[in-house]
């Protein structure tokens, strides 16, 4: 098997993803885990209600221990976000923020959930009139215009680079940029205008977006604002594979008891499948998803 191919790829390094890695790798399949520990909502939390841990433990410590455990079962960790997914010929193709491509027989979605909205004045009012949450969907509407991308992580950085192919001028508002060195370098060598010392305070416009007011008082005259907070999540990475979302909120991925989505070979575990936001639920689902994905991958590898 080549270096960039695996049986089970896990997107997300929270408790669901780690437990899935432990159980999948335990079944002797090749497992790669993508993502960063800081993206997990457990990273900054303290846990007091997780069975068998009487003392309050830090989430960060749990995540580090889980990684060591998964590695002891030969899981491989790639500390990059996934920015693109595709399925072709019974395999999934995943592209990382550095532009590296990996193939997998089965994929477990365990990216959790993250805030997608900026919560600033003008954002809601101008949605669809210059405010967008999806560079991949809407870049084409901004040909020859000036746009701002807002966000500190891979989705925003990759989005800004994508927009260079469409827009006239691209700003990236990112005071706390956390991306790989390679992506950083690509940005620095591009025409993206990087704003590091301010955040967005307000989005201004009448019937359409006209400008962005920054926290340092500067005003960017733009026709569009792309809000791309965090890493790409369920809607960005799973929807294009044809995954069914929960009917009630359209935010979570539907799974059955085996943690299978409606797409063969695609599983989901943890917060991404819906409430409750508990480590116990995430590891339970991760365990099942890991085992089932490994079984699926073995079956498909034989056929």
């Amino acid at each position, binding site marked *: 098997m080549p270096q960039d191919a695996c049986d089970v790829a896990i997107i997300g390094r929270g408790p669901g993803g780690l437990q899935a890695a432990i159980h999948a790798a335990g079944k002797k399949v090749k497992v790669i885990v993508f993502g960063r520990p800081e993206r997990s909502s457990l990273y900054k939390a303290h846990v007091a209600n997780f069975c068998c841990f009487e003392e309050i433990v830090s989430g960060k410590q749990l995540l580090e221990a889980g990684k060591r455990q998964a590695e002891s079962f030969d899981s491989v960790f790639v500390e990059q976000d996934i920015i693109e997914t595709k399925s072709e010929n019974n395999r999934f193709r995943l592209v990382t923020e550095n532009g590296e491509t990996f193939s997998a027989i089965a994929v477990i979605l365990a990216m959790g959930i993250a805030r997608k909205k900026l919560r600033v004045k003008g954002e809601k009012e101008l949605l*669809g009139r210059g*405010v967008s949450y999806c560079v991949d969907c*809407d870049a084409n509407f901004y040909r020859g215009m000036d746009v701002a991308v807002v966000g500190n992580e891979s989705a925003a950085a990759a989005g800004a680079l994508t927009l260079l192919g469409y827009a006239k001028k691209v700003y990236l508002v990112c005071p706390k940029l956390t991306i790989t060195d390679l992506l950083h370098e690509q940005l620095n060598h591009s025409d993206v205008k990087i704003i590091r010392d301010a955040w967005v305070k307000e989005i201004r416009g009448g019937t359409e977006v006209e400008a962005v007011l920054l926290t340092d008082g500067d005003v960017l005259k733009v026709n569009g604002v792309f809000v791309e907070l965090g890493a790409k999540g369920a809607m960005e990475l799973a929807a294009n594979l044809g995954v069914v979302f929960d009917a009630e909120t359209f935010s979570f991925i539907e799974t059955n008891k085996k943690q299978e989505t409606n797409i063969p070979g695609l599983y989901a575990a943890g917060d991404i499948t819906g409430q409750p936001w508990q480590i116990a639920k995430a590891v339970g689902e991760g365990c099942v998803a890991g085992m089932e994905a490994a079984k699926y991958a073995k079956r498909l590898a034989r056929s």
Partner: protein
Amino acid sequence: MAEQGVLDVNDGNFESEILKADKPALVDFWAPWCGPCKAIAPVMEELEETYGESIIFARCNVDNSPNTPAQYSIRAIPTLILFQNGKVADQVVGAVPKSHLEAFVKKVL
């Protein structure tokens, strides 16, 4: 009419199929590369099965038909516009839950 499913409309037939239609119409402006558009497609089909007798459910690929979305100042997809008597009755942007969209189409029933 319920058996016809979601109708594909384009720049060429938008006026005759939607604006001059004798029924209200819900048009989903979408593109094949758009994930949220894919997510909402089955919801459109389900609603068509329930309300297809009284409302036209249609979709317009913005990639193949750029003029119509430009006319309605569409800058994000999916955008769903509800038309009545050739005019925009309401519109919603993004992949929204079925209950939300159902309440939306009931406005013109």
